[in-house]
């Protein structure tokens, strides 16, 4: 239970960086940290006590494997979510670079002031 709470604390650290920080790259880093926290939470809920990876090897028999294997569904969700995070990161960095070209600064407040 404390693992879930600490992981949610990690999410709020990312949330703080996202909202309170003015530097655009800091906001992007905040988003990345939030993605880590959510992916970690999804894998945590799928873990089974003394569980093994859900990959069958030749020397395992199927019955014990089914009892001890960890939950494969959250891992499928996390694989998708990691690559979604990469996609959004690529889009964010390209917008940040073009913003820097246009305004000459990464500071969100400065940009709001210049935008008028």
């Amino acid at each position, binding site marked *: 239970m404390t693992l879930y709470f*600490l992981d949610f604390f990690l999410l709020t650290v990312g949330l703080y960086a996202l909202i309170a920080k*003015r530097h655009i790259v800091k906001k992007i*880093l905040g988003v990345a940290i939030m993605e880590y926290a959510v992916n970690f939470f999804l*894998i945590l809920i799928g873990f089974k006590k003394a569980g*093994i990876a859900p990959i069958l090897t030749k020397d395992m028999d*199927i019955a014990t494997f089914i009892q001890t294997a960890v939950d*494969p*569904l959250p891992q499928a969700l996390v694989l998708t979510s990691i690559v979604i995070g990469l996609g959004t990161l690529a*889009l964010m*960095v390209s917008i940040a670079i073009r913003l820097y070209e246009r305004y000459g600064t990464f500071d969100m407040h400065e940009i709001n002031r210049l935008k008028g």
Partner: protein
Amino acid sequence: METVIILHILLVFMIIGSIITVEIKNMLSAVIAMGAVGFVLSVAFLFLGAPDIAITQIIVEILSLIILIRATINVDNVAIEKKEEIIFSNRTTLIFIGVILVFAWYAFHSLPPFGDPSMRVSQFYLTHGLREVGATNFVTSVILDFRAYDTFGEAMVLFTSISGAFAILRRWKKEQHKDFLRIDREH
């Protein structure tokens, strides 16, 4: 039992790393600190019995580090931090986060305890996976057969974000092709 202790240590390290990422002045070291948090996360995935996810996390971590360093290496990454933060927005966000954390503390009590997931649906994947799909890596059989439509949607997400990034990065004809790096040297 010791995996729980190890996971606690790794998680505390990740929290410290992310606080460093948020608070440090130099942008490049912030990106490196975030990279460290990502690598510790992929080690934690190994302890949680998810080798697929650990490999993907390390590889995607390297690529996002390359992209992020690209965005921060040649820009004025220290100048921003000189100005002081606006106290008001930090304080309200901290209060808002504190309220959510208190509410979350009670909510996490009624989640099933760590270590015994209610595998109501995924037990079917483990029992029928080998016979009906034939793949011995059950995560891949879930990704590409039981929920292939999800992975199709996800490939389209990557396709959209790359094509969107191309749309944003395209040059307008009337704009001369000034090289991004050269702008800074002129400053």
